[in-house]
């Protein structure tokens, strides 16, 4: 077992409901509350929203994509300017990913070897290599509060020996990441649990990462098209296998329903482009699900997006007015983005506070009832809630009725 690495965070569980926890995560730049959704800032900005707006919306940790930031403005430039915090003038916390996932998903001809991720430079087509060392060095220059290890990530739909190879490599790479990390007192290196959908592989990876005694852990390799029933089981296994007293981050999760389920199973942090991306298509997040503002019916709907939302957009504007904006004006998507981020941050607060105040089960029930007024809660959610030991029977219509509806 390696010696305890330095940590730059404090994680205190304030309250529990079975597996769910409400916690305080103290990072160098900010004290956050979990469960927490972290909006994705890609280039160091969240699609059109100003820093003041992000603070008004109670955003606590923002994600930056290392791949994009290393290209523009560049890691050395950020370093010379005192890091990404100073560059974008964001006073709260930042998290950067390793850059590996984006490369594999964005770049043609990206390939993974023991050395690292090889790819063609998007600038001039030259062959390039991102090693675990380099990923960490770049992230050290960017300066985020939380940095992610470079992992060997495979699609969840992949089967066969490749999955096992990736999991073992991830464990070898974590040691290289730890060795390369030059700022452990200021930045927290999170390891990422891989292993596809195979519980045996996940277990090996869990044990290996836990043995490294990292400040925090992520559950990776999900939200890539796998069946929901497989998805929740992996999350459940991982949260059970990760230490109680460290934060758990499920990467790439952004559907409100998924966040509620994962929180019930004991996860703490989430990130996804979904809320801001879907805003650009005119879709607003509401308790009932998704409101498609471009639909003609919205033109005569004079209600706010969400009558329970207290954000600036819901207090000022009607669906009808927003409908006329989203189809034509940039301001339309900006306003819907604003609301969607507000929605996700309200969800985060609701999760944290309901656990803290001992009413988490009621919150989950009420959430599901609004999303599934007909009682057609998906099977996988029911199974997951059973494991989380939260009674949602009152949200589910009798099986026979559901069967009739599905016909």
């Amino acid at each position, binding site marked *: 077992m390696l010696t305890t690495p330095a940590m730059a965070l404090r994680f205190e569980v304030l309250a529990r409901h079975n597996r769910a926890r409400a916690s305080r995560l103290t990072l160098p730049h900010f004290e956050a509350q979990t469960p927490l959704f972290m909006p994705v800032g890609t*280039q160091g900005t969240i*699609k059109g929203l100003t820093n003041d707006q992000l603070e008004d919306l109670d955003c606590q940790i923002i994600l930056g994509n290392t791949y994009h930031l290393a290209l*523009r*403005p560049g890691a050395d430039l950020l370093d010379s300017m005192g890091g990404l915090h100073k560059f974008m003038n964001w006073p709260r916390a930042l998290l950067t990913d390793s850059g590996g996932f984006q490369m594999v998903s964005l770049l043609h001809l990206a390939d993974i070897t023991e050395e690292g991720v090889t790819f063609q430079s998007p600038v001039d087509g030259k062959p390039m290599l991102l090693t675990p060392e380099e990923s960490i060095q770049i992230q050290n220059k960017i300066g985020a509060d939380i940095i992610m290890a470079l992992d060997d990530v495979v699609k969840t739909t992949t089967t066969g020996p490749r999955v096992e190879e990736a999991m073992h490599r991830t464990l070898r790479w974590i040691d290289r990441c730890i060795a390369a990390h030059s700022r452990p007192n200021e930045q927290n290196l999170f390891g990422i649990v891989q292993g596809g959908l195979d519980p045996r592989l996940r277990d090996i990876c869990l044990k290996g990462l836990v043995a490294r005694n990292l400040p925090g852990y992520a559950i990776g390799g999900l939200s890539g098209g796998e069946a929901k029933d497989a998805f929740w089981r992996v999350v459940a296994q991982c949260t059970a296998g990760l230490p109680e007293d460290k934060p758990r981050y499920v990467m790439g999760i952004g559907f409100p329903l998924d966040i509620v389920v994962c929180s019930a199973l004991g996860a703490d942090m989430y990130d996804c482009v979904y809320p801001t991306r879907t805003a650009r298509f005119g879709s607003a997040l509401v308790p009932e699900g998704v409101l498609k503002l471009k639909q003609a019916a919205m033109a005569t709907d004079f209600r706010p997006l969400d009558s329970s939302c207290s954000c600036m957009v819901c207090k*000022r*504007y009607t669906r009808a007015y927003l409908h006329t904006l989203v189809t034509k*004006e940039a301001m339309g998507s900006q306003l819907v983005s604003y609301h969607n981020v507000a929605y996700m941050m309200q969800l985060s607060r609701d999760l944290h506070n309901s656990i803290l105040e001992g009413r988490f089960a009621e919150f989950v029930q009420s959430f599901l009832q609004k999303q599934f007024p007909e009682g057609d809660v998906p099977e996988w959610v029911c199974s997951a809630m059973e494991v989380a030991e939260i009674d949602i029977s009152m949200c589910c219509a009798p099986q026979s009725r559901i069967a009739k509806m599905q016909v």
Partner: protein
Amino acid sequence: MEFAVGACSGGARVGSLQLADGVQVETPGLLQLTQKGLPATIPPDMLLDLHPDARLCQFTPLHFLESPLSLIVARAGGIHKLSSLTGFGMVAVARDMLAESSNGEESSNSVETGQPIVGPEKYMDVVNACKPDLWVSLPDDVSPWVDEKRNRLSVDRTLKWLDQCLSLQNAEYGNRCLGVVVGASSVEERIRSAEQTATRNVAGFSLGGFGMGEDVAHRDLVMETVIANLPEEKLRHVCGLGLPEEILQAIGRGIDLIDSTYPFTLTKAGYAMTFPLYMESAPSSLEKQPAVEELAENGSDSAKINLRSVAYRLDEDQLVTGCKCYTCQRHTRAYIYNLMITRETLAQTLLEIHNTYHYLEFLKAIRESIKIDKFNEFRNWFTSKRHESRVLSRRAEEL
């Protein structure tokens, strides 16, 4: 609506404009452009604190002609409520300035037929539904080089429509009409239009048919003529001008309200306004100004900097040193440069905030010069600085 003229200097004057809901602004004042009631990229929660003078917006009723917007604005109870801009003065103008600056379309006449796309009844339906603080009557706008016959028709028709609009206006809101004076480049027709319009019971006047590519020197003459035939004590508005020199020229002729596309067009093209605002600039800010030749190399000049230029990649200064706008108080040129080249919409928002703020400061500097009776001095100083830098830029380009 109340308007009172204050100090004068040269042909320029300051004034005090009082609108509903306690909105009070000093003139000459700038109208911020909006699209369907909201700015292009400045979010509504940032408008109130944008600048102390940022209290006037313009919009065009032409956007609200068709359903569903026509129904939506009526249902909301007017443009202020629709766009949630209570505390702002909203002025309805008949030209879609944002579209014009984007793609050169004049929207009160159809591009295809040259005939108006809306008549006074429909126009006033929308104006009354919008309930603006001030509204411009529906003009028959023609281009500056139109023939005599068409020009005469334009003057006659505009007067006829003014009368119709006035008869259709919502009585309980009192007098909020700005009668449009047309006449294109014909001094004769301009006088006729001005004299006739002045006999109507309007709150003020809007000088139409400018900013359409007319000769600038001739515009000055025409404007002077029109103003000479309008009552002193009523408001004067002009639409369609842009550049600082054009603003100065119009104010020098006695204009009180201006809407300008300049902040918006600069923003769209990735520029930040940087021209100096005061004759006695602080020495430190003068030192910081790079040589004009250097600016020319990156597509900038003494009035604006090109944030798409790699010259700003490492520049940790504010857009304008000492500027108190939101953007300059929080962000560097390097950050904005990065937002521009990564095509983030936040770049536009931050630039629009700064450019609007800077132009509002420009208007404030103008007003201050009028109050101390140094308007002509200010104008001469400003235009000579611009001329000098243009000559130097051109030389730099030639080298």
